[in-house]
C-alpha cells in the first residue's frame, strides 16, 4: 500500500460507464513529485494523508472485481508526521509533550 496526500477532487464528466459516479481524487504519493488519481470510497478531504492500494486489489477495494480502478483509497491515516516520515503521536499527546502548551 502507498502513503499519499490528497490534493483535491477531479471532475471528469465524460467517463466510461464502468467508473460509475464514484469520486476521483488527485493524490500525491509520499516522496514522489508525480500526481496520481485514486478512487475514493471513504470520503477524504484535501490535505488528508491516506493509504491507497494498487494493482488488482484496487478493484476489490473499490467494491467489486469488475470495477476498473488501479488505485483505491482504503483508509485515512489518523496521525501522520511527515517530517519524520513515520506515524506521529496523537495530537493530544503532542500537546502534552510540548512545555509551551502546558497550563
Amino acid at each position, binding site marked *: 500500500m502507498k502513503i499519499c496526500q490528497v490534493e483535491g477532487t477531479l471532475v*471528469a464528466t465524460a467517463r466510461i460507464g464502468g467508473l460509475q459516479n464514484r469520486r476521483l481524487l488527485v493524490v500525491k504519493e509520499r516522496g514522489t513529485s508525480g500526481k496520481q488519481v485514486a478512487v475514493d470510497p471513504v470520503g477524504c478531504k484535501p490535505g488528508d494523508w491516506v493509504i491507497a492500494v494498487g494493482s488488482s486489489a484496487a478493484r476489490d477495494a473499490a467494491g467489486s472485481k469488475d470495477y476498473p480502478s488501479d488505485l483505491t483509497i482504503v483508509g485515512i491515516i489518523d496521525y501522520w508526521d511527515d517530517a519524520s516520515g513515520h506515524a506521529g503521536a496523537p495530537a493530544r499527546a503532542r500537546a502534552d509533550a510540548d512545555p509551551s502548551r502546558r497550563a
Partner: protein
Amino acid sequence: MQIHRVVRDLVTTKRNFWLASKSLRVVEDHRGNLEVALDPIGAKPGDFVVTIGVSAARIAAGNPKITTDLTIGGIIDHWDEARWHG
C-alpha cells in the same frame, strides 16, 4: 490512475486479434514520456484524460479479454499545465 494528455491518434491495421477494433491514442505524461492507450470514449488531441493501468485497464476496455495495460477512463473537465507539473 494517472493523468495523461492525448497527443494524437494511432492507426494499426495489422494487430493482435484481442485488440479487436478498439481506438488507440498516443498519450504523454507530465515528463513527456509517450505511451499508447486504448480509448473507449473518443478523446481528442490536447484533452487531459485519466488513464487506468494494470489489470483494471482490461476491465475498463469493456471486456477483460482485451489485451491492454492502459485504457482511458475519462476526460478531465478542468486541468492545466501548472497543476500537471506542480
